[in-house]
């Protein structure tokens, strides 16, 4: 079996986990989570050199930060499949006394999480700070961060974007989940982002564009981004995704940003997603 096939199997299971987790507690954000399942799977099982025994400081390993914290289901599932904590714990998502908070948090000590996120726009700054620390410590590993496209409407994002370019933070790969949707509608309707590629280039970043729902393209894109690190510029991947990717009735609209499926919709969704590694 090729690596790509294996990654696809993991991503399919991650998607099953996402819809089941959100259905279990009847809350959460399935749309963006499904759209980023291929990316997070490739990141943790192909691109990053990381240690699932989890040390907060992340010395000598690649580190990932999720800035758009509302897509926590995809991250929790990915971390569980990467061995950070038992898969059975996914059943506690958004429940009282769980380590799997609605939005990621360090407070309950969930392995794999290094900062709380949920209030948007903050994760790039934090990730950039850790990238800066790696440079100070002459640690040659990389820092990754994922942000939503709607999240780019937050001003702090652009403070971090200016800073990283000015300070040549070139061990830093940011990915934008460019699904074109946000809570109240499309980005274009709510607050258009304009020419994103030109904007990031103008800020001094190396820019790649990638299809985020084609596993081969994601693997190739991450490899290409890594090849561009260490050359004096931070790197951004503008990742085209489909909100709800993998579940037909959740695709093509912003309506599944933060909505849980009914019992019938869950059955419909699971019928479209192969159980490859066993449900939690």
């Amino acid at each position, binding site marked *: 079996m090729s690596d790509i096939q294996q990654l696809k199997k993991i991503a399919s299971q991650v998607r099953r986990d996402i819809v089941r987790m959100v259905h279990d507690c009847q809350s959460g954000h399935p749309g963006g989570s499904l759209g980023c399942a291929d990316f997070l799977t490739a990141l943790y099982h192909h691109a990053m050199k990381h240690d699932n025994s989890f040390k907060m400081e992340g010395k000598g390993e690649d580190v990932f930060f999720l800035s758009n914290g509302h897509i926590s289901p995809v991250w929790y599932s990915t971390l569980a499949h990467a061995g950070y904590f038992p898969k059975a714990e996914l059943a506690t998502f958004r429940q009282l006394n769980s380590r799997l908070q609605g939005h990621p948090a360090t407070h309950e000590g969930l392995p794999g999480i290094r900062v709380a996120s949920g*209030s948007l726009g903050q994760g790039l*700054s934090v990730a950039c700070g850790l990238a800066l620390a790696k440079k*100070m410590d002459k640690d040659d590993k990389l820092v990754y961060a994922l942000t939503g496209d709607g999240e780019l409407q937050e001003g702090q994002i652009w403070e971090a974007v200016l*800073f990283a370019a000015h300070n040549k933070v070139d061990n830093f790969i940011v990915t934008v989940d460019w699904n074109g949707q946000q809570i109240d509608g499309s980005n274009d309707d709510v607050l258009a982002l304009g020419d994103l590629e030109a904007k990031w280039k103008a800020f001094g970043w190396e820019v790649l564009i990638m299809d985020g729902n084609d596993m081969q393209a994601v693997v190739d894109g991450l490899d290409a981004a890594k090849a561009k690190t260490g050359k004096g510029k931070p790197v951004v991947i503008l990742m085209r995704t489909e909100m709800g990717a993998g579940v037909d009735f959740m695709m093509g609209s912003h309506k599944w940003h933060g909505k849980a499926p009914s019992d019938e919709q869950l059955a419909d969704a699971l019928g479209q997603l192969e159980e490859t590694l066993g449900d939690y």
Partner: protein
Amino acid sequence: MKLKDIKSSGKKATRDGFGDGLYAAGKADDRVVALCADLVGSLKMQDFIDDYPERFVQVGIAEANMMGLAAGLATAGKIPFTGTFANFATARVYDQVRQSIAYSDKNVKICASHAGLTLGEDGATHQTLEDIGMMKMLPGMTVINPCDYNQTKVATIAIAKHEGPVYLRFGRPSWPMFTEDMPFEIGKALTLCEGTDVTIFATGHLVWKAVEAAKELEAEGLSVELINIHTIKPLDVEAVLASAKKTKCVVVAEEHNIIGGLGESIARVLAQNNPTVMEFVAVNDTFGESGKVPDLIAKYGLDTKDVVAATQKALSRK
């Protein structure tokens, strides 16, 4: 210590104490890094930058990013000190401090100059009188407001060794120095003099005003207990209760809004444990304005005579 022995040895700004303390902390521990949002001169950070340029991060006028960067640096095991004005270290970035630092348990030292009215002519846009309230409400946040140059210097050194987020509040003006050789321990009230008739708890610049007031009151034959609460959170509850039990009369003096400051913290502790007559010397829920420091202190009721009047009023209610 006797009240008459508390004397000013000269004047220097608390922010100078921060600059000198930062340098000492950086010299002692190479995990200490400093960040500044385009206010190096105002925060007195140049000595640190000159000797440890590789551990200094100029972030530009981008305080939200600075708080996030600090959280990331702390995640990697650094001890970041952020430097900007108090208003921009709190109100402007409250959500960043809340989520990325406090809720995430990051070992970041948020260092804030130009707090209160005493930055003077810049006026109310910069005169934060709400910062203690905001910061003390964050779970896990330590809040310290030192009273003079020396206490700010030793507090800066102490917070580098303290694990956890800290808000360190200091100011712009030259101010009497009087705490040389006095002990400093985070969370431990500093008794400046013992007395039996009334307790004055004071923090920050108003500690000196309280010293002057206590001397006037003593000249009138009153026995004043003067306690410096430099650490507003965690509050030294034991010291507060012990003194209130003894004097049965309390005054609190601070350069902050009467709402949300040290006074309310002490009032809560006393209301729960030992209801006591209290008066407050603080800004009465208003914004400040431009002006000379002495004029602002007089107009907004933070002067020596205001501490004396509040104490007399408290005693009359005892």
